[in-house]
């Protein structure tokens, strides 16, 4: 069977191959519920490349590299397609930014970011394996400690 088409869009962005469980998180992190144009979300789709995937289609908006990078942590397998006039114009790769702002929670309960109105900031110190350091309390966290906000 041909890959399921949720629906075609003229111009916009398709985020494909999202780990299925993270699909709605992607919508949340990219703040897509605030958009006026059509946003289509599908999860638990069969995929050749992975077990189950999610797809998010955003009409009328070309996501920037910076926005796309925000999902690098929670959906590292995702592919991002920019659609122009019904066809794929560009495929973007996800790059983990040097600084993660407001994306993950600090695992340290005594960190100021867990106790005051302060946005979290993490320095990415290494990617494989992933090691990030809280800009405020200076604690290191690895993949296992990560909690997406």
């Amino acid at each position, binding site marked *: 069977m041909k890959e399921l088409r949720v629906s075609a869009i003229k111009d916009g962005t398709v985020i494909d191959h999202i780990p299925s469980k993270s699909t709605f998180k992607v919508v949340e992190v990219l703040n897509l519920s605030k958009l006026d144009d059509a946003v289509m979300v599908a999860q638990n789709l069969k995929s050749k490349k992975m077990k189950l995937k999610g797809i998010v289609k955003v009409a009328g908006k070309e996501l920037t590299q910076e926005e796309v990078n925000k999902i690098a942590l929670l959906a590292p397998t995702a592919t991002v397609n920019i659609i122009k006039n019904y066809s794929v114009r560009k495929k973007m790769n996800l790059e983990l930014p040097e600084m993660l702002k407001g994306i993950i929670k600090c695992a340290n309960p005594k960190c*100021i970011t867990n106790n005051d109105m302060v946005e979290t900031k993490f320095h990415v110190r290494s990617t494989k394996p992933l090691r990030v350091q809280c800009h*405020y309390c200076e604690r290191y966290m690895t993949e296992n400690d990560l909690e997406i906000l």
Partner: protein
Amino acid sequence: MQKRVARPKKKMSFKGRDVISIRDFNKQEILHVLRTAEKMEKNRKPLLKGKILATLFFEPSTRTRLSFESAMHRLGGRVIGFADPSVSSTAKGESLPDSIKIVEGYADVIVIRHPLEGAARVAAEAASVPVINGGDGANQHPTQTFLDLYTIKKTKGKLSGLKVGFLGDLKYGRTVHSLAHALSYFGVEMYFISPESLRMPDDDLYELKQKGVKYHEVKDLKKVIGKLDVLYATRIQKERFPDPLEYKKVKDAYILDRSLLKGVKKDLKILHPLPRVNEINYNIDDTPHAAYFGQARNGVPVRQALLALVLGVEA
């Protein structure tokens, strides 16, 4: 416009800078702070006349506060602030950035001590005047680290190439983590002497390894004490042990007593951030090895140096 051929040597600038974490300072900057502290001990000039320091102690710490106040007074400046968090607006639910934005209008420089980790960095981001961290929970206490370094430099004449032992609670002792980090610039060989349960955290060891530091983890002080130039002792706190029997077992193994000093180098210096409970026996105080009281005194010139530097005043 004429092309500039020879570039003037870049001057180190401390003016307007915050002092939040020892990690924010490179080797040259650390040495500059230590040299400035040395000058502060020699000449007493009212370099900060007309300046105001605000000390915001969201957690009580008498020694750190007095030491900052003394430093500011010695430089001819004035001090405002609070030592009791219950009088602050934070107690009424004000956010820290808001509190800082108010206080910066009253002072030229701020010292903050706070029980939450990262609070000083938040304060620095909110303030337009320099902020000095007087301790943020278990995270950083950079002025303590500068005074530890100053004490080592003063008593040993140098930092480079020393063999430094860290004794006791290396897990929770933030002074140990910061000092080890700072000493990593100076080719120091480190000995981490602790019970298994209070080992140096893996994150810190990882950082040291990345910087090419030669270090050893040891359980038995007797085995290595003879090699050391400096021994930095810390308190082992009973509260850290879930099992009181475990505490009893390790406690006595990490107590410094005169009898332990038999085979040590003649010029071994013993430091301790104080207060001590029983980890250094009083019978060591009058030996030439005891450097901890001098260390506490050094807090004043070091804090004078940092206050003057961030306010852009040359000693």
